């Protein structure tokens, strides 16, 4: 077990910088998931921790010791690769035991430990097979076992589940979680699958274009996205974002002219903002409720089984609403949506960062006047 400290780490390939100064502290025994779109630099970051990629600038320390100059074998990390990277000419037992063989562990001891680890991941009957004779899920287990046998200080996973079918992926996810509960080894897990990230992580790191956008517990990231990017990246379907302009204290206007009243406490520094609301936080045809009421024109309905998604437009902006399974709504209809005051997120259009919400704040700046009189919802209309 170990803690990892990442300080202002940068990575350049030639003249292009792909990781721009990342700071991250990973605690002892923590399971951290790095999530981000393709090409954002998550693998690069992971590989710098592993020692497979040079660190252009900054420092990575494991257990307090700088590891920048150390070879992978000297860092105490084990890695599970996306394509498993099993040695094709060795059988399962030799694949799992290779690290021990290199380390000079005696044959009998090696066989014993291979058997133990293989049993842990359910590979007992397969020790004599070649990787080519295994299914994808079994190969995945071999890769896991190979990482486990060294009893490393840190587990590194680079999208280890993305080559499995949906069902197996869920199953392996649970097994990884269970394994972590038992071994409590510090783990860094890279994925671009947000469900995987949310379910596995103690703490999530959302990356975009070589930057860390937000670090936090899955629930916190979901409920309080720190940037516009996180808001739109996390959540399925993604959060609705409505570009707006602050016109008066506590009031923003959409492009159509419709006005939205904001609860008091949002601290806005600029004029242009984006108002966000998750599709599941919208109320449809609510009799009462605190929030802004706006007309919504349905374009089509997506059936999900457990619920339905209504796609349409709200004040001329594409908008998605999540409906309960039984809800009746058909294309072409117009419904009144209630955007609850407490469900709103506000992002500064200039910096893309979440606006500060401080109910008790004394206002500082032109737009920072708390609004009173939102006890009854305001019907905004566009003529």
């Amino acid at each position, binding site marked *: 077990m170990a803690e990892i400290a990442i300080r202002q780490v940068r990575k350049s390939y030639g003249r292009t910088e792909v990781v721009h100064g990342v700071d991250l502290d990973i605690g002892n025994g923590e399971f951290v998931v790095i999530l981000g779109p393709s090409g954002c630099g998550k693998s690069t970051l992971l590989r710098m921790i*592993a*020692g*497979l990629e040079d660190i252009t600038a900054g420092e990575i320390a494991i257990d307090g010791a700088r590891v920048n100059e150390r*070879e*992978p*074998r000297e860092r105490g*990390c*084990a*890695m599970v*690769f*996306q*394509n498993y*990277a*099993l*040695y*094709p*000419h060795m059988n399962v037992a030799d694949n799992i035991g*290779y*690290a021990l063989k*290199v*380390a000079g562990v005696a044959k009998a001891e090696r066989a014993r430990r291979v058997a133990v680890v293989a049993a842990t991941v359910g590979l007992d009957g397969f020790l004599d097979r070649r990787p080519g004779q295994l299914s994808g899920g079994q190969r995945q287990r071999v890769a896991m076992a*190979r990482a486990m046998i*060294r009893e490393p200080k840190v587990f590194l996973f680079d999208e280890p589940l993305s080559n499995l079918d949906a069902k197996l992926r869920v199953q392996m996810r649970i097994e990884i979680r269970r394994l972590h509960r038992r071994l409590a080894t510090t783990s860094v897990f890279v994925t671009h699958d947000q469900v995987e990230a949310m379910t596995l992580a103690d703490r999530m790191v959302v990356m975009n274009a070589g930057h860390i956008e937000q670090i936090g517990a899955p629930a916190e990231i979901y409920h309080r996205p720190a940037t516009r990017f996180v808001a739109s990246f996390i959540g399925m379907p993604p959060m609705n974002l409505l570009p707006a302009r602050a016109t008066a204290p506590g009031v923003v206007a959409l492009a159509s002219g419709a006005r939205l009243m904001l609860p008091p406490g949002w601290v806005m520094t600029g004029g242009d903002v984006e108002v966000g609301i998750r599709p599941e936080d919208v109320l449809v045809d609510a009799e009462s409720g605190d929030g802004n009421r706006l007309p919504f024109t349905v374009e089509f309905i997506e059936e999900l089984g457990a619920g339905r998604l209504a796609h349409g437009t709200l004040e001329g902006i594409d908008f998605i609403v999540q409906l309960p399974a039984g809800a009746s709504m058909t294309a072409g209809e117009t419904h009144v949506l209630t955007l609850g005051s407490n469900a709103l997120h506000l992002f500064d259009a200039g910096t893309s960062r979440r606006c500060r919400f401080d109910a008790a704040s004394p206002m500082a700046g032109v737009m920072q006047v708390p609004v009173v009189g939102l006890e009854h919802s305001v019907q905004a209309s566009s003529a």
Partner: protein
Amino acid sequence: MIERTPVLNIATHAILVVGLLIAFLPMWLVFVAATLTIEQINNPPISLLPGSELIANLTAAWNRAQLGSKMLNSLFVALLVASGKIAIASLTAFAIVFFRFPGRMVVFWMIFVTLMLPLEVRIVPTYAVAANALAPAQAVLEVVGIAWLWQVLTGVKLALEWNLLNSYTGLVLPLVATATGTFLFRQFYMTIPAEIVEAARMDGARPLRFLRDMLIPLSKTNMAALFTIMFIYAWNQYLWPILVTTDRANYGTAVMELKRLIPTSASTGGGTPDWNVAMAGCLIVMLPPLVVVALMQRYFVRGLIGADK
């Protein structure tokens, strides 16, 4: 495009059979000639059916050309060339593919250029080096003045000499020092997924360990292919062995000695040329490469088409 076309099938088979006949006819003639008596072979038209003198002719050829010791020489040289080539090729390709070092591309291109200079083209300089393998070193020492310094200090003229003529080293080294195998291995190494290399690094394998535990087992079929090619190449060498061996009794190779079986006015003394014995010698000398191909063929084909993955 795979279609059922009976006419085309027959035509293609006919072409195949004709091609096979054309390829085999000379071989058949050699075989037939080796079974005839000296009178039969010198009486045109030549028979197309084998005679009864095969054993006698083989024995005669074997004894006259001392094929026993010469074949051993050839075998020794061919084995050394083939294994030396595999060792050099796998190591140079290893360096080029898996290491980033200054001048890597320069080295790569220098090796590449030697592909365009087969032994026959550079035979004169190669011979000069074989006559004194240290001549290039001597030249360098003279140019930089160390030879002169040595002479002034010790009073002895510095003359490095390492003669490779009439030695197995001389027969083998120039055949080993070519680029063909390096490219075969380079192509294969480049197909090895980067993740396997990285997994081995994470497992703690250093480069030589990786070479031993991963690359060598994985490239077995390539090695078999290269072995076969190089064995035949070395076995069939004629020009180079003739140049470097004056001591034929000790270092002559089988292919060189075949020449001795070819009847000339000198060897027959004006008598009838015994082509039957020469052909019998051919049969004997052809045999080892055939055996190697037969034994290696399974791996050889797989290695060349890279289907072992």
